[in-house]
């Protein structure tokens, strides 16, 4: 008889084994309308998790509740084992935030800004290293007020990771960045991940979520409609393939879950075995996403709440 002895894990305390973010039944209402509606979510330590969803789906509200800057109306939330509503300075020191706001004074240069905020952290990343990581070397001496929108986002990203946080929240971090800056940002996130940092980001960009995230959560109308690794997202939706070919000058198409059988039948019926314009496609990530959140034509019109 063999017994498996569990190796004692001295460092595995409760705080280290529990997820970085744990949300149960989160509710937030504005004027009676629930913008976050009974949302559950776990983000493991060291994971990169992307919240994907259309504007107004409740992504920013959720993130702000996790950051402890917005009150919730119901549910249970733990961020690094602490309720954000009562998180103190030591807790804040462990999280980094890149919000949608721009929290740097216009009259300071990039370098001055980072140097100033370095003094708020116990062990800040060196300013030069941060500037290089977000690709602002040429703008280090430029005042924040003269930066482009994308450059300001990059500065915000640098400020968000300056204190070597265990967990980083990024709310639409790449909005306004050009493609080169976005790729540079992706590299930065990968480097953070390699260091063991947990990352929770929101984004509109599917390619960004697919590129960066270990798991993607799709939010629609305040609820998580699906959580999965990017390439497994909407597995059922993706099973259906579309077979297209041209017959007598007309494009024909068949939606099927068994494209192989369809192809065999098609080809068997052809003497020449040739089928012009033949293609088999599966829904792209974008198609899956659109059906998950409900395309504009099928989505119920969002009530305008208390606006008249």
């Amino acid at each position: 008889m063999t017994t498996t002895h569990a190796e004692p894990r001295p460092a595995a305390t409760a705080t280290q084994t529990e997820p970085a973010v744990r949300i149960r039944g989160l509710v937030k209402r504005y004027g009676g309308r629930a913008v976050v509606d009974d949302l559950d979510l776990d983000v493991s330590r060291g994971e990169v998790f992307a919240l994907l969803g259309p504007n107004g789906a409740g992504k920013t509200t959720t993130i702000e509740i996790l950051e402890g800057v917005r009150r919730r109306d119901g549910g249970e939330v733990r961020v690094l084992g602490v309720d954000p509503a009562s998180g103190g300075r030591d807790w804040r020191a462990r999280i980094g935030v890149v919000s949608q706001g721009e929290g740097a004074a216009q009259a300071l240069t990039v370098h001055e800004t980072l140097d100033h905020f370095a003094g708020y952290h116990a062990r800040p990343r060196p300013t030069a290293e941060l500037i290089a990581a977000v690709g602002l070397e040429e703008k280090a001496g430029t005042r924040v007020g003269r930066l482009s929108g994308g450059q300001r986002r990059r500065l915000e990203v640098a400020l968000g990771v300056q204190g070597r946080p265990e967990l980083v929240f990024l709310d639409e971090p790449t909005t306004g960045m050009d493609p080169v800056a976005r790729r540079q940002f992706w590299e930065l996130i990968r480097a953070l991940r390699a260091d063991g940092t947990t990352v929770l980001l929101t984004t509109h960009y599917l390619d960004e979520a697919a590129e960066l995230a270990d798991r993607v959560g799709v939010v629609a109308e305040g609820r998580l409609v699906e959580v999965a690794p990017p390439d497994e997202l909407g597995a059922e939706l993706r099973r259906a393939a579309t077979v297209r070919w041209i017959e007598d000058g007309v494009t024909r198409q068949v939606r099927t879950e068994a494209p192989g059988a369809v192809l065999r039948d098609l080809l068997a019926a052809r003497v020449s075995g040739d089928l012009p314009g033949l293609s088999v496609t599966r829904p792209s990530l974008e198609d899956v996403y659109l059906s998950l959140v409900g395309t504009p034509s099928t989505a119920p019109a969002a009530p305008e709440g208390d606006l008249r």
Partner: protein
Amino acid sequence: MTAVLPATTPRPAPPSAARIALRRVRLELRLFFRERQQVVFSFAYPVIMLVIFAAVLGGDERPGDVPFTHYFLAGIAATGIMLTSFQAIGTAIAAERENGQLERLQLLGTPPAAYFAGKAGQVLVTTAAQLALLLPLAHFAYDVPMPADLAHWLTFGWVAVLGALAGTVLGVAVSALRGSAASITTGISAFAIVLQFFSGVFFGFLELPGWMQQVAAIFPLKWLTQGMRSAFLPDEAAAFEIAGSWEHGRTALVLAAWVIIGAVVCVRTFRWRRADG
């Protein structure tokens, strides 16, 4: 980015509030002197007004044979203190809240005390610098006598400090008013201008209509101005004050009361962000 310490390494405590406060003071001063508008409107304003009014009304006299410039220096010094404290702080905080700078501080876990200390340090330095510019100008260019002796300098000192303190806490308090930063700035500027007329900065306080005097007596600027007169004008001029004396006790009481009221309002209303939804 190069590899860093693993995230599980025990984390040292964040820097103390005092250290952040020092950084904030340096930052606030740097920002203040980089904002041209602020430098002109709250810092250079008293100096410019002294030059203008001395050029126009320099030959006039105020009750008690006091030359206009002597009377005016007290008023404009008091105004200067109000501007570098109340106006500068109120408008700056409203703007910083609106453009997300306070949000950043909140997310960093900045102790509010460190933030306020930065503002207080800014007020201290800019007020001192402004007076250090204004007083010699008045003395050497317009022959205005400085406080006669140590006792008068001490009066000048406590009046200035209490006034700046009241202005700072009231500035923080009004920054919490609802509305955009632009509307708060306009409101504060308009209020400050009207208050200057009511408080006897431009005209002799005795020449003002009674209702104006009574309104002014509610606010700190009138007492700040009167306290400054007691430091700069000869003792005989006290006969031309409303009470026939400098009313030092009441001045200290009113200013201290505003400091306390302002501090209580600050603690109860200060927010890092605009109203939560």
